[in-house]
Structures are given as C-alpha cells and as structure tokens.
C-alpha cells in the first residue's frame, strides 16, 4: 500500500544543511493501523507531509497504492491527494460557518461526483461517525470532538487508500479523544488503512504497529502484540 524507499528531506538555511529525514525506508500493508511516534523535531511532521503528498522528498522514492508519487506536479499531487488520502488534522480544519454536510461534500466537489451521490455519501459517513442528527449544524456549533468526527467523515468521503491523521486528538478533551480512537479502531476493522502521527504514547498504543522516529531516523519499529485494552 505504502512503500517508502530511502527518503531524505534536507532543508537548506544559508550554507547549513539540516536533514529532517535521513534515508528512511518502510512499508505499510493494506489494512494496517500504524502510529508514527516521536518527540517534536524528530521529523514526524515532515514525514507526514511527504506521506500526504503535501511536500516532496529531496531524495528517495515513495509509492502509494502502486503509483510513484514522490515527484508530482502541483495539480497531479492535488488529484492523488483527493482520491487516495483522507486527511484528519489536529485543528480539524473544517470550513468555518459551513454545515457538517457541506464540509463532508467538499472533497467530492473536486472529483466531479454527481450532486446526488455527494449528498448521499456525505449523509452515510456522517451517520457512521454518529452525527446523523447534526448534519446541518455549522462547524462553530459543534464541539471539538464532534468537529473531528466531521473531519473523519470528510476523510472517508472519497473512500481513500489511507486515512492520514495528524495528532487527531491533540485539540480535544480526553473523553472525546477515546471516542475518536474507537471510531479509528472500527474503521480499521472494516478494512481501512490508517496512519496516525502522534507524540502521545497512550494514543499510539491503539495502533497495531508503532514506528518511533528520532532525529530523522527510525529508531524502533514494533508490531505490538501486547496492546492494552481499556
């Protein structure tokens, strides 16, 4: 599903070169649930941007769903993101003063899906995340947890190859964070591939596999059979 090969990302400030990522390689299989962990400055945000095709690596190759996506033009990248990646951001990033339904419809508008189908799918995914009764609430009328659930529904809208979550519980209360984690688990059971960036160990524990990053390198990669059930 995801194949990352010798990826480096080097930032140049004047004459000084800083490697945010240094020769990273790994693969993620379809249906897996992977957490990428690390302290700030470990390169996990850079990695998330590359996996999300929001940025391209300085060196190395990246294959997503069999397609080489490491060096795409801006519009090509937009199209791949639209079809293959469901983003879930720390700050939710819903359109302000826009209904939950319209927010979920947004990515489908960029993919020439018919209006009827958009609405039908958006309703289906909103119901799935438990917001069937709040579809016409605007984003500022929803709590943080509810907003993140709208964002999950939006991420699912295009039925993407991977769900890419960047600190999905970073901005919400812990009780609601648990709910988000339960939704993730259920989605994973249904066959969705999830990649989650986090610096919180108890959040990472929900994943089947944890990749630890430090100073732009993978320091630990464990498939954790000893997951704690709460």
């Amino acid at each position, binding site marked *: 599903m995801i194949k990352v090969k010798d990826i480096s990302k080097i930032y140049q400030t004047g004459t000084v070169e800083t490697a945010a990522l240094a020769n990273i390689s790994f693969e993620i299989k379809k249906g897996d649930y992977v957490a990428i962990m690390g302290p700030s400055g470990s390169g996990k945000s850079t990695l998330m941007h590359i996996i999300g095709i929001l940025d391209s690596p300085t060196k190395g190759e990246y294959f997503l769903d069999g397609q080489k996506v490491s060096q795409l033009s801006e519009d090509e990248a937009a199209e791949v993101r639209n079809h293959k990646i469901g983003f879930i*951001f720390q700050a939710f*990033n819903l359109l302000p003063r826009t209904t939950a339904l319209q927010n979920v419809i947004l*990515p489908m508008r960029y993919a020439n899906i018919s209006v009827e189908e958009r609405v039908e799918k958006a309703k289906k995914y909103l119901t799935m995340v438990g917001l069937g009764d709040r579809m016409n609430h605007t984003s500022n009328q929803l709590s943080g947890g509810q907003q993140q659930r709208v964002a999950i529904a939006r991420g699912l809208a295009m039925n993407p190859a991977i769900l890419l979550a960047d600190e999905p519980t970073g901005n919400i209360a812990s009780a609601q964070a648990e709910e988000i984690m339960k939704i993730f688990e259920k989605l994973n059971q249904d066959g969705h591939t999830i990649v989650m960036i986090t610096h919180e160990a108890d959040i990472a524990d929900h994943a089947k596999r944890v990749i630890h990053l430090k100073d732009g390198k993978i320091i630990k990669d464990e498939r954790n059979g000893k997951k704690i059930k709460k």
Partner: protein
Amino acid sequence: MEDLIETIKESFGTLTLNKMRTGLAILGIVIGIGSVIALISLGQASQKSIQNSIQSLGSNLLTVMPGGQRSGAIQGPSGGGTTLTLADAKAIESTSKITTINSVSPELSQRSQVTAGRNNTNTSILGVYPQYSTIRKVDIANGVFISQSDVDNVRKVAVLGPQVVEDLFGEGSTNVVGQTIRVGGQQLKVIGVTVSKGGSGFQNQDDRIYVPLSTAQKQLFGVNYLSSIAVEAKNANVMIDAQNEIGYFLLEKHKLSDPANADFSIFSQNDILNTASQVTGTFTALLGGIAAISLLVGGIGIMNIMLVTVTERTREIGLRKALGAKKKTIITQFLTEAIILTFTGGILGMVIGVIISYILAIVMSLPFTISFSAIGLAIGVSGAIGIIFGWYPAQKAAGLQPIEALRYE
C-alpha cells in the same frame, strides 16, 4: 455547470458574511459605473437637444454670415462683422443668376434689456422680414407675425417668444397681445406670440423677440448691417449649387476676385450640425473619461479587498488544496467572488446612473435618453474589472503551498 452554480452560491455565502466590507467594496464600482452612465447620458442628451433644435430649423436652409470663411470652424457670434447689408439680401433674392433658391430672410440679432411694467429680462432681439416665419418655421400662437407693411412703415411692434412672455408677464399669461414692452427707450406694441418650440440650452428659440428689421436697424440699434441672411434652397439636393451660386454672386457684388478673401461665409444646417455634434461628442467623451477614472479607483478597491480576503483565508485555501483543489479551482473561486462584487456594483451603478440621468433630464429640461451602449459598456466593463483586478489576488491564492497555508495562524 452544477459546479459553477455551487461556486457562485458559495461565493455569495462568503460575501454576505461581512456585509459592511462587501458593501463598501461594491460602493466604489457603484459610483464609477453610475457616474459613467449618468455623464454619458447627459452628454448624449444635450447632443440630441442641440441636434433637434438645429434640425427644426430646416434641412434646406443656408445661412450667410459676415466674416471670412475658415474651414471646420463656425465664425464668431452673429453681429461680429458688418459686411452684409440689406442690399445684399435683396440682390440675392432678385438676381437672375441664382436659380436654386425659394426665398431670402435678412436678419439682425442683438441682445438687449427688455422691460414690461416692473419686470425685465435680457434676451435676443431679432430684426426680421415676414419671410422669416416660413423659412425658420416659426408658428404664431396668438395675434400675427411681422408683416411687410410693418417693415415698410418701421412700425414699433414686436412678436414675443413664450419664454419672454413668461419672463415679462408671468407664467400662464394669455392677454399679452396689445400690451407694450420697452426696448432701449423705445415703446413696442406686442402684436403676436409664437408657438413654443421647446428648445433649450445653446439655442432657445422661445427666448426671443421679433421686430421688423427696419425698426431694429433704425430705431433700436442704429446700425445698417445684417447679422445673417437665411436662404431657403428649392430642395435639399441643390444645397451645394445654391451655396456656390450665392457665394460667387456675393464675391462679385463685393468686388472680390479671390474666394480666399471672402468677407462672408455660407453654412448649411448640416455644417452647423456636424460641428455641433463634434463639439458635444468631445464633451461627452471628456465627461465619460473623468467618470472612468472613478471606475478605475473602484477597481483598485476591489483588488485591495480581495487581497485582504486571500490573506485572511490562507488556512482555508491550504485546506482546499490538501483536499484536492487544483490551481484552476482556487482561481475560479476567487475570480468568481471578485466578479460577483463588481457585477453587483455594476448593476446597482447602472440603476443609479439611469435614475440620476432621468433627474438631470428633468431639471435641465433635456430629452431623457437611456444610452444602451453605455449600459452595455458598464456591464461589460464591470465584469472585466472583476477579472482584471481579481486576477492577481486569485493567482496569489492559487500559488499558496498547502503546508505553508495549513500552518498559517
């Protein structure tokens, strides 16, 4: 198509969020388009008014004026030269050398103070022959026009235009015939009132007093020249022949051999019409040009507000790009917003411009004309302004990098 409608709906939604700002941004375009339409309509109305009053004088009319001929320019005001006399007019009428004319009207025009009772006005006094009324198409509403006998006997009589009646005797006065007016110490008896021609502005034919030519020359002004001779050609097709015949005849009579030294000029109504149209056309273009500057300022206002919008919505743009919006999509979104702004402004400005030109037409008693070309232009221009001034902000929005934009606080 569905997507376009959705984009337009979404833009309306965004624009109505900040009504005050949107309103102020639109105001610049409203003022610009409104003033372009109002001023162009005003210019065209006065042009039409002048053309109407010139055309109402007749299409087969030639006017001989004193003073040399200069190409492309109307000679100074009538009375500016003293080279034409009644003898010239009579000779033109009686000679066998000129075959293409019907009748001749010698005229002397001067402005003077006129009083009646306690009222007074400053108006044009025209010394005329009876032919004047047929050649210049003057109709009598009350009483009679100047007769040949009035001219022969130097009678102290006058025919008033309706505007003069209003100024001297008050609005709606009917029993004016038989009253007396004073012009420069002379008492004149009113024998008639002309029908209103509704003229205005430069050539108001209602604001005139007609007296016998002999009375004007001998009793009122003490001069022996004419300010013009109006000649009616047999028909509109022989105008050039008539112009040539009169020209050569007068040259000979004035003992001039070189036409370049002529001490008179001959104009047809068309010459005057063309010159007047040229002048008012320039005037209209000037007014339109001044108004266009305010439109430009309005356009810059739109660009300014769109740039602010792009900065404010950086995160939104980043999100849209992350979710798969291509450059074209973002450009379309922001251009749509800009065009909606300018187009709404254009429509409002058009309505206001038409209302203003209607009010101006009433106040200045000009014919009310809606200039459809100006309206088409205004709509086209307001759309174009949206594209021109929305382009740069839209490009700026589309050029944002999604990671940078998402990170922006």
